[in-house]
């Protein structure tokens, strides 16, 4: 297949006009993040606005960045994955059990953890694609199943004593004063940004998400795309689990699950930024740190911890409402 040659070279495509409203929309979240940051900096100059705090926020929340990035892949191809947080938890627990309790070398434990992720992804995909069950149901069930498995594996206890090398590799070592975990997360975001925007695979993912029938009739193997999308979501969740184990130096069977809602909030909030209306990795990173700054600042102001849930839940619904508004506005059709 070749692109048809056209002999019309006289006119060139118009450069996309600078539309200030759409630029404002694309970077509104970035601006909001900065405003929020400086408000807390002004209110809490000695605690919030210090390098140790800023670098800790950047490093410790890399886990959430990974998990959000994991989510936006199936969201782009039109599937929900509610099992990402449970996959994170069981992966962290796998590292802890194999390495700390059974004494296996760290690399083996990590590879096993990623293997667990791959299996979870394959199982999700099997039930979704073979039995044609909505992804929401399958991943809700599988996620809960994994929680049970994690509790059983760990006897419902926190397992510490993971090889110190992992901690050093994740948060112990700093580059320009920021823990390495942050750079891992940024690298992951860059890879996804490239795949989404500049590879045929990324385009196929988007087409499958926006119109399965159109994608199918354009020769895309829709089930294959959805399979790999679900698989990569689970594997990236496992990476998030390994990073989480390295961040806290242990694995507990419950705390990982609390990442689910902030990850969804960040994914949808991120979809209102950079390329509004599309799940995108850069928007996701910005959204994660917007949420993190909000929570950290409020906590430091001495506001009680229930505010976390207010913030997470509120920002999820607001984010979706905002993106819905953006979509409505486009509907002005003439004719």
């Amino acid at each position: 297949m070749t692109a048809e040659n056209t002999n019309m070279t006289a006119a060139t495509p118009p450069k996309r006009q600078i539309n200030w409203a759409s630029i404002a929309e694309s970077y509104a979240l970035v601006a909001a993040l900065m405003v929020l940051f400086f408000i807390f900096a002004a209110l809490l100059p000695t605690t919030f606005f210090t390098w140790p705090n800023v670098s800790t926020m950047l490093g410790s929340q890399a886990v959430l960045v990974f998990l959000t990035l994991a989510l936006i892949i199936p969201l782009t191809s039109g599937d929900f994955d509610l099992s990402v947080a449970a996959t994170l938890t069981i992966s962290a627990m796998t590292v802890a059990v194999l390495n700390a309790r059974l004494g296996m070398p760290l690399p083996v434990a990590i590879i096993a953890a990623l293997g667990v992720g791959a299996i979870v992804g394959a199982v999700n995909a099997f039930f979704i694609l073979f039995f044609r069950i909505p992804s929401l149901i399958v991943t809700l069930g599988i996620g809960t199943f994994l929680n049970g498995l994690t509790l059983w594996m760990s006897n419902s206890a926190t397992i510490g004593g993971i090889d110190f090398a992992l901690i050093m590799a994740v948060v112990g070592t700093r580059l320009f004063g920021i823990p390495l975990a942050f750079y891992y997360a940024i690298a992951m975001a860059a890879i996804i940004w490239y795949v989404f925007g500049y590879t045929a695979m990324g385009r196929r993912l988007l087409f499958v998400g926006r119109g399965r029938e159109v994608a199918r009739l354009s020769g895309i193997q829709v089930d294959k795309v959805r399979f790999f999308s679900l698989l990569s979501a689970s594997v990236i969740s496992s990476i998030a689990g390994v990073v989480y184990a390295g961040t806290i130096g242990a694995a507990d069977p419950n705390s990982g699950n609390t990442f689910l809602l902030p990850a969804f909030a960040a994914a949808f909030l991120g979809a209102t930024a950079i390329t509004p209306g599309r799940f995108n990795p850069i928007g996701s990173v910005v959204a994660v740190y917007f949420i993190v700054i909000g929570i950290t600042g409020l906590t430091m102001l001495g506001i009680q911890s229930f505010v976390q849930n207010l913030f997470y839940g509120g920002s999820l619904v607001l984010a979706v409402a905002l993106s819905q508004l953006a979509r409505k506005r486009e509907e002005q059709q003439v004719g």
Partner: protein
Amino acid sequence: MSPEQAPSVDLKDGFPRRIPGEAPALLARNVSKIFGTTKVLDDVTLAVMPGEVHGLLGANGSGKSTFIKTIAGLHDPEPGAELILYGQGAPLPMPAGGARRLGISFVHQHLALMPSLTVLENMLLNDLAVEQNFNIRWGKAKKQVAETFERFDIKIDPMTRVQDLAQSDRALIAICRAFEEVRLNAGAGRGILILDEPTPFLPKSGVDQLFSLVRSVVADGASVILVAHDIDEIREITDRATILRDGKLAGTVVSEQASHEDFIELIVGEKVTMFQSARTPDHSKPIAASVRKLRASPAENVSFDIREGEILGLTGLIGSGFDRVPEAIFGAQKDSDGTLEIGGQSFALNAMSPGKAMGQGVAFLPADRLGRAGIGTLSIAENMILPVMGDFRNLLGIDWGKINTHVFDMGRKYDIRPNRPYQDLKSLSGGNAQKVLMAKWLQTLPKLLMLDEPTQGVDVGARQKLFQAIDEASRKGSAVLVASTDAEQLAQICHRVLVFAKGQIVTELTGADITKDNISQETLRAHGTQTEPKQEVA
């Protein structure tokens, strides 16, 4: 309309009146609407007399939908607009639900029926939706609906589910329901029924049924506004027609006095040369593809050859199976059988897939433009580039600059307006979206290009552009398969037409035999249906 009712034209205001001094059923004056900086309606006036069927025509984007939506209260007009019903002022902007209370009801193209519910439930839908009704008397309701159907000579069991009905029956139900609503709200012999493109999915017999229903509606004294694309249909059913162009009133004509060409000129604003193919296939060209014993219910045992450069039409009534053929060849549906020979190879159709078909140079453009053919929320460029993405790769991945240039060039070539590659597909008119999707496949230089209803809901000007593109592809050697119920379109472009009935090919039309009338007649004859239009209901 019967001749004895012929109204006399009032010299003072130009309205044709049956009764001297009667006020128009609906008079909308000075209606304008601005979206952003575009004036989509510019001082439009429309007068519909009692008992009149009034056509409303215009190209896509001419403002007819906006006009209808303004009367429905979905858009607020600019200040200065007036709406007068039977000589009495009505509020504009129209409050929500106001139009209905004033006896104006609408039937839109999507009909607003619930497929999984019964006809009876659908007929009662509006009552059920707005009334606080605790004690529904189903027996009485059923009797009422049966009586209504009886009055309009509609033979549909109220207890069937809408999803089991043919499209034409669904349209009848939707119109019947809207008319009952009009009668209820306006009183007998009054009211306005607005039909917004109810016919494009209907076979000729369905259109006839629908028109006889329209005739009984106006015989009752109510008025009908019919928005449509098909000029012949407008000329057949309407008394007068108003044509909009670029948001302005292009003219109001007495339908039986205006020719087909007059209409086109008013719609497009200039004389249009109707595209006409030479109708002569080149028999020296090699066979591009052979279909053998294709089965895709209801199509059964369908075999034909298509030569390089040939434009082959497939037609028949809805349900005759002709429209399943491209789907089956493309591997778009699972339960099909038969073989396709193309490029010296033979393929079993039960193991065909879209990817495999594309690999053999087969392309398929489905009729459902934003459901199966393209994605409204993605840009023109993204939609167009999908099958040729591999050509735009450089070392760093996809080269968006190159894509933009290419899509822009294609936009110029196929006259896509506006030619802005990054604009969402859904923001384009039907005709322009179709140009984008046609370009999507034409750029692959397919050996076999299959089109399902390629100009459905496309205005007459854009149609000629699409026909030229199809013709050009055939000149370059593509074999083109066009599945359509639109006899006029088939007559314009095809070299050969296969007519289907009950899943089989029953007639083949070639050369000078390919005329609109022949195709319609053969289609009906093949089904053993009467060719005469249905008798009017008194």
